[in-house]
């Protein structure tokens, strides 16, 4: 397998401009002769489709929702980073780059991460020009706030709905191109396979989710922007329909899957309340600016939190990390919540929660001030839990939030399959082993508006792309494969529901491939997933029929893929015998419970090549060594 990163040579700050100067262009009158498929309409896919269409390519865009506007990027709350230095607090592109690469525990490519920081400023200009209503100061200029992991105010925001407003900006840009006839928008369509002709991605197979029809789509290049795979855990902050199918089917056709075990666990979510629960809801990280995290010192203390006196409370983050206190990064906060719960100090009906207490902040600043800052979050919390956080502490617990792993891509965001580009959360690049807050939106839009539109031109200009008929044998084979998979699901005709399988997989993943992992646990997880997968194919029940709208059939296909991906996530976690970022191996931590990296042996991207499934998942490991020319690797410390 060829893992050539194609990183341009030369100084870090000149790599992208040098590359833009070097890559080939497609003449304007030729662009209209080329078709591009974009799968997914979130920040990455929406912005890519709009920009490619505006350049002149014929774009066909696909989403599983009823409208492109509903992609899950819409749910991002906090903000988007950029190195504008508007607050004049000393921010630079270098600082944004450095915080991002350090936050990722030095497991991402320097060149990609630096380019992200460079492009960040253009993203803000673009969004503002589109009419995205960012927060403003009284003087009419843009407002900024701070976020975890940074010492400057570089986060731009639109109240707590930044993702929504940026997504609507990209969606509207797309709809403009639909109006211009340059985007063919296909909604309620699920990608089931990629079609490879002469070694190049030349199309996709979809299922029309309303009619059930299997359809064939041809193009000169395919952009996959289908999001992350956090729903492998069943419960997560992802939308219910978020899934790995498009990416996983590409993996099965030869696209390398990189760093699958890097999963970000967000520390401040509303805890699980019952076995019917379908998803977890995030409480913004910003709450930890004023909320104090604690548990009762005594195990099993079931008194009402307001009745527990000060000296019987354990403010574990403040005690263990005096310098950062409650504002330690997400991985550290999540891990410590798990530790105190494992020790029996957890609170609430399940014992899997800790308190986030605003009592002192309310005493200090008054209820009104706290309400001004967090009112909508407090209301959301009360609506879901029926508890009033002004009067008693919130109960929070970590939850799966974002996946840093994904399909391997080079500097052009092209996978190892020529013509298959991967953008946003679906690729592995930029965030390393941990993602800082307010950087997911930045990456999605950077990839879609400013990278893919140019690198795809370079590919199209440099390749022989003869016309391919949709009757080509590769299309026949892929379409039959997709149909065969669906038929097989119905043939099982067992008596256990898809949801039951998904929930069981999620529990294995959460217990053994979650906040912290161990060799023993991962080996058990691999075995359990294999057994569950076998049971699935012998006992799953898919109701209804294929030629109709059938949500359970959609889920069955996705859970089948999660049952394979889950095993790869555990395998990747097992082989990476070090702790880094969100990947904590119990065997590798300091006496104080801090993650211990092993840069000597593990400073590489783990890219897996699919070999088959035969009881167990067969995968071959390839390594892309990470070279750090410009930054010095240091242990992260928040003491």
């Amino acid at each position, binding site marked *: 397998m060829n893992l050539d990163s194609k990183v341009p040579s030369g100084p870090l700050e000149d790599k992208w401009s040098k590359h833009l100067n070097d890559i080939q262009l497609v003449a304007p009158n030729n662009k209209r002769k080329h078709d591009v498929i974009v799968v997914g309409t979130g920040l990455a896919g929406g912005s890519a489709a709009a*920009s490619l269409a*505006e350049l002149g390519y014929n774009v066909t865009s696909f989403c599983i*929702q*009823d*409208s*492109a*506007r*509903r992609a*899950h990027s*819409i*749910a991002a709350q906090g903000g988007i980073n950029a190195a504008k230095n*508007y607050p004049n607090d000393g921010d630079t592109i270098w600082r944004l780059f450095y915080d991002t690469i350090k936050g990722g525990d030095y497991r991402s490519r320097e060149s990609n991460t630096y380019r992200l920081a460079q492009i960040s400023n253009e993203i803000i*200009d*673009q*969004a*503002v*020009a589109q*009419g995205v*209503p*960012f*927060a*403003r*100061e009284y*003087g*009419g200029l*843009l407002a900024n706030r701070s976020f975890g992991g940074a010492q400057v105010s570089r986060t731009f925001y*639109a109240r707590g*709905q930044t993702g*929504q407003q940026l997504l609507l900006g990209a*969606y*509207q*840009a797309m*709809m*403009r191109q*639909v*109006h211009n006839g340059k985007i063919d*928008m296909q*909604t309620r369509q699920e990608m089931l396979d990629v079609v490879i002709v002469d070694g190049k991605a030349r199309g996709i197979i979809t299922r029309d989710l*309303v009619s059930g029809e299997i359809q064939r789509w041809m193009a000169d290049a395919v952009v996959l922007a289908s999001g992350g795979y956090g729903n492998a855990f069943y419960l997560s902050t992802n*939308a*219910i*329909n978020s899934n790995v199918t498009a990416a996983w089917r590409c993996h099965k056709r030869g696209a390398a899957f990189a760093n699958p075990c890097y999963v970000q666990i967000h520390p401040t979510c509303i805890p699980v309340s*019952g076995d*019917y629960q*379908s*998803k977890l*809801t995030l409480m913004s990280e910003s709450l930890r600016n004023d909320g104090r995290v604690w548990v009762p010192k005594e195990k099993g203390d079931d008194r009402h939190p307001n009745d527990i006196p000060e000296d019987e409370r354990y403010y574990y983050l403040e005690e263990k990390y005096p310098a950062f206190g409650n504002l330690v990064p997400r991985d550290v906060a999540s891990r410590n919540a798990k530790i105190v719960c494992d020790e029996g100090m957890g609170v609430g*009906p399940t014992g899997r929660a800790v308190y986030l207490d605003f009592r002192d902040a309310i005493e200090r600043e008054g209820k009104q001030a706290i309400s001004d800052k967090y009112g909508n979050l407090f209301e*959301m919390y009360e609506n879901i*839990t*029926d508890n009033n956080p002004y009067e008693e502490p919130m109960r929070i617990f970590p939850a799966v939030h974002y996946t840093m792993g994904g399909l391997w891509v080079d500097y052009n965001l092209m996978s190892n399959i020529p013509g298959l580009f991967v953008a946003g959360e679906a690729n592995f690049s930029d965030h390393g082993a941990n993602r800082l807050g307010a950087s997911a939106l930045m990456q999605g839009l950077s990839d879609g*508006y*400013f990278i893919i539109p140019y690198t795809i031109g370079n590919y199209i200009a440099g390749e022989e792309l003869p016309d391919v008929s949709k009757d080509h044998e590769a299309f026949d084979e892929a379409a039959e494969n997709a149909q065969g998979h669906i038929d097989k699901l119905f043939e099982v005709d067992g*008596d256990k*529901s898809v*949801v039951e399988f998904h929930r069981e997989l999620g529990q294995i993943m959460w217990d053994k491939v979650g906040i912290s992992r161990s060799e023993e646990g991962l080996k058990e997880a691999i075995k359990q997933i294999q057994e569950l997968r076998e049971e699935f194919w012998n006992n799953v029940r898919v*109701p209804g029929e294929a030629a*109709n*709208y059938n*949500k359970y059939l959609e889920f069955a296909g996705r859970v089948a893929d999660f049952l394979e991906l889950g095993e790869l996530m555990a395998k990747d976690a097992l082989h990476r015998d070090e702790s880094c970022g969100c990947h904590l191996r119990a065997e590798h931590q300091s006496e104080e419970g801090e993650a211990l990296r092993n840069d000597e042996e593990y400073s590489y991207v783990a890219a897996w090549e699919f070999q088959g499934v035969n009881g167990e998942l067969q995968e071959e490991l390839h390594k892309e060594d990470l070279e750090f020319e410009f930054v010095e690797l240091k242990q992260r410390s928040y003491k």
Partner: protein
Amino acid sequence: MADTFTVHLKIWRQDGPNEPGELVDYTLDKVNEHMSFLEMLDVLNEEIVKEGGVPVEFDYDCREGICGSCNLMINGQAHGPKAMTCSCQLHMRNYSDGDTIVIEPFRAKGFPVVKDLVVDRSAFDRIIEAGGYVSVKTGSAPDANSIPVDKSVADTAFDYATCIGCGACVAACPNSSASLFTGAKLAHLNRLPQGEPEREERTVAMVEQMEEEGFGDCSNYAECEAVCPKGISISAIAEMRRNYMKAALSG
């Protein structure tokens, strides 16, 4: 853990757009007060699957009140009884043991039924397509701070921009008007300096597309504002009309 209770459901079942539909009775006795309304339907569907039936189809995705997918008419109210709340954020603690709940799709000529409770809201996309954007090319934008925007203007634009496109406004309106949806997008873009150059063209195109899609006229019932999960003000409609008149007169 709270005790479970029983609800009686009357749910609209319809096989496809051209099939007849009817309300079908179900009884669910595993309801927990902490469940969301959609989680209650998930539990019902699991029971239906176990019994060999075909589950009820309904739209949902984020389940945190922001994607706009969910769209249930609950006892005749779009998104149910709780103000400023999507179906996905409505919790079963709002109901009691023995309650009967009628669940129907958002009904409107512009929203044909796809299956059961799922409707086709692509008309909203076509309204945006007609002009609900600022025509700016990628990468050619001036520095973001080169166009100051009065804070109150930006805040008001944001209030209108929070529309999630769920369609409750249409479902609640006796005329099935999409004026709140269209008006909200116009009120967002038309008041910003970035949106100003295309204001007239945008207003005319979007209003005309809305009519073409088969949505009715606004008669100021204000039912749309009452059910909007994001609390979008009906003033958007007055503003849309003023702008439309101006554009039509200047011609």
